[in-house]
């Protein structure tokens, strides 16, 4: 028995593919070699610059030389390019480890006297036993580049001074500043006042909007589900309509209907001799309006959800309760309500988390307005997310926006992870079948 293992391993460590060729898996070896060649070519040109870029974020801004602008380093492009290169490096390292492990395993099999798979057999093996991984490759690449990389990028921005007016490339450079942005946000009077003001409203909004839509949905579902109510399907169809209309449309329409000067609602009130209300221009009424409009949009969702659960409650529970002489209210309190609460608790928490991030409801309806005088670029109905949006796109305070984004994430993540961990489906998911 020969010792193939160490030779194959050493060869595959030296270069991808050599171990496979040594194992007489030529096609596979050539594929690996091509990957290696391409990677060496790519990294020799970019890796040094990527490391330099991520450490320094550029050294020369755009400058005037003898009356002409000379392009310098654009810190943000450098950061993005470096990040892409480093991500490719991670992928390359993973591929390299796979290559070594594969060479080792195949050599081990040869020592036991087995023929290594030929290329066709390898593909076949992949499809039979590594099906899940093969399936996941494409989505993973998409998620990596369009979700993970952007998030990493934004997290990094929170630790730079990338903001208007003094640190916007290409005229100026951007630098790493550590936790300075967070310190400013939480302790600098102008920023912290806005931050805590907006945070407070965000939480009030999330609680109120979740509770109102949930209770509203519960009420409607119970109303329709009562014994003796006819045309249940028709009521449900009518009441589900607000959910079926795209939010973009319904919220923009509501924005016009509640318009203080020419909106139909105030004109209607005027028609009946009542004074109009400053629906969207007074801070207090604007808050009331967003909650009410959100009920209109959100109640159908809870209604559908709760109606779905009502149908799953076993009938014999009610029959047993009736034999014991329970009245309608008792049946509701002892059977219906606990069952609904039990099944919807996870959704309720997710809806709460979703409402913290409910960009559409605020932005399309009020734009975050009315403006509050002593706030930094925020209005009375701005949530943390819409404030983040304004800081990014209108004010170019990218570092501050990223810091706010990270804080939002921490709040939401703590709710969701708690929620996810305690759901049964995570702990015992294989028990379903």
């Amino acid at each position, binding site marked *: 028995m020969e010792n193939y293992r160490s030779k194959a391993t050493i060869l595959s460590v030296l270069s991808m593919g050599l171990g496979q060729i040594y194992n007489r898996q030529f096609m596979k070896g050539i594929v690996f070699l091509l990957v290696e060649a391409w990677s060496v070519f790519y990294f020799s040109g970019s890796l040094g610059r990527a490391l330099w870029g991520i450490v320094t974020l550029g050294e020369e801004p755009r400058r005037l030389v003898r009356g002409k602008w000379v392009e310098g380093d654009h810190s943000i492009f450098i950061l993005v390019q470096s990040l892409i290169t480093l991500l490719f490096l991670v992928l390359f390292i993973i591929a390299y480890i796979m290559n070594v492990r594969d060479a080792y395993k195949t050599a081990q099999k040869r020592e036991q006297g087995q023929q290594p798979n030929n290329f066709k057999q390898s593909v076949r093996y992949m499809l039979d036993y590594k099906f899940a991984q093969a399936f996941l490759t494409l989505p993973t690449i998409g998620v990596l*580049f369009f979700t993970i990389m952007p998030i990493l990028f934004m997290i990094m921005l929170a630790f730079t001074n990338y903001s208007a007016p003094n640190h916007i490339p290409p005229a100026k450079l951007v630098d790493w500043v550590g936790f300075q942005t967070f310190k400013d946000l939480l302790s600098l009077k102008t920023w912290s006042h806005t931050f805590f003001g907006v945070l407070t409203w965000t939480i009030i909004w999330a609680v109120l909007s979740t509770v109102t839509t949930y209770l509203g949905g519960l009420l409607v579902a119970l109303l329709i589900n009562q014994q003796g109510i006819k045309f249940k399907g028709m009521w449900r169809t009518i009441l589900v309509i607000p*959910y079926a209309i*795209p939010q973009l449309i*319904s919220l923009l*329409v509501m924005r016009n209907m509640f318009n203080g000067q020419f909106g*139909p609602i105030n004109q209607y009130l005027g028609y009946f001799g009542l004074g109009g209300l400053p629906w969207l221009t007074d801070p207090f009424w604007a808050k009331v309006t967003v909650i009410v409009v959100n009920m209109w949009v959100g109640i159908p969702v809870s209604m559908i959800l709760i109606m779905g659960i009502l149908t799953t409650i076993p009938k014999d529970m009610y029959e047993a309760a009736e034999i014991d002489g329970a009245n309608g209210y008792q049946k509701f309190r002892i059977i219906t309500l606990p069952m609904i609460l039990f099944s919807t608790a996870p959704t309720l928490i997710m809806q709460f988390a979703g409402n913290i991030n409910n960009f559409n409801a605020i932005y399309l309806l009020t734009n975050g307005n009315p403006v509050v005088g002593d706030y930094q670029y925020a209005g009375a109905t701005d949530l943390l997310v819409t404030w983040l949006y304004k800081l990014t796109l209108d004010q170019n305070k990218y570092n501050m926006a990223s810091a706010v984004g990270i804080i939002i994430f921490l709040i939401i993540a703590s709710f969701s992870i708690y929620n996810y961990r305690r759901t049964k489906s995570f702990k015992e998911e294989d028990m379903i079948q």
Partner: protein
Amino acid sequence: MSGRKARKGIRLGLSYLVLIILSIGAIYPALWVVLGSFRPGKSLYSKTLIPESFTLEHYRELFNSQSYMFGQWYLNTLKIATLSMIIGVFLTLLTSYAVSRFRFRGRKTALSTVLILGMFPGFMSMIAIYLLLKEWHLLDTHLALVIVYAAGAPLGGTFIAKGFLDTIPRTLDEAAKIDGASNWMIFTRIILPLSKPMLTYMALTQFVGPWVDYIFARLVLRTKENWTLAVGLYDMVASNQNTNFTAFSAGAVLIAVPITILFVFLQRLLVDGLTSGASKG
């Protein structure tokens, strides 16, 4: 006995009354806009709900006027939404099938990653995506939107789709395997036909997303003839002061009606989709 009957009658009567009021509340704004789109003039307000005369002028205006390129926007949106839907559903299906049917190393990590990534505010990554698209010279193209919408689809849909696939008995797969079917055959011959309701639900939601997305489309699309419906419609009401509300209503009707009809029509599926997502996480 009759007292009980009377009480029941009162209860039902009150319930019907509340239901009628709620129903009016639910459809009034929608009805207002639909009827508004047929009303002559420019104001969204009128004393009566039903207009005194009907006109199709606003619809004609949308497609003929120089300032609105509604026909062009409609085609753009249709193209973007259809392509993102096809690719997005495909990617979501791959992901959810893999995590529902196979047990492999890193599976729980993958699931948790999907969950955590979904918690980041979407536009936190928008600036980065914007720069990335700029790097690749994809700004102001429809391809950029399709790529980003489709790549993001698995994050939103995987959990609901997985919840559905989990309910298809695994004994079916095993029986097919014994009969000599490969994984791919099991997927195409057994799983896909059985997942039709879920596929419809997924296709619908992933079509509607791009169809009405304002934020990201606004960021990427710069020239007016490349705009989508959402960007165009928002521009119609939010940019200028003396807005033409009736034309806006007509636009709103054209965007919302196909989607709304689909949703109401597919209500059953909606219920299933929502509840399976709810009870199985």
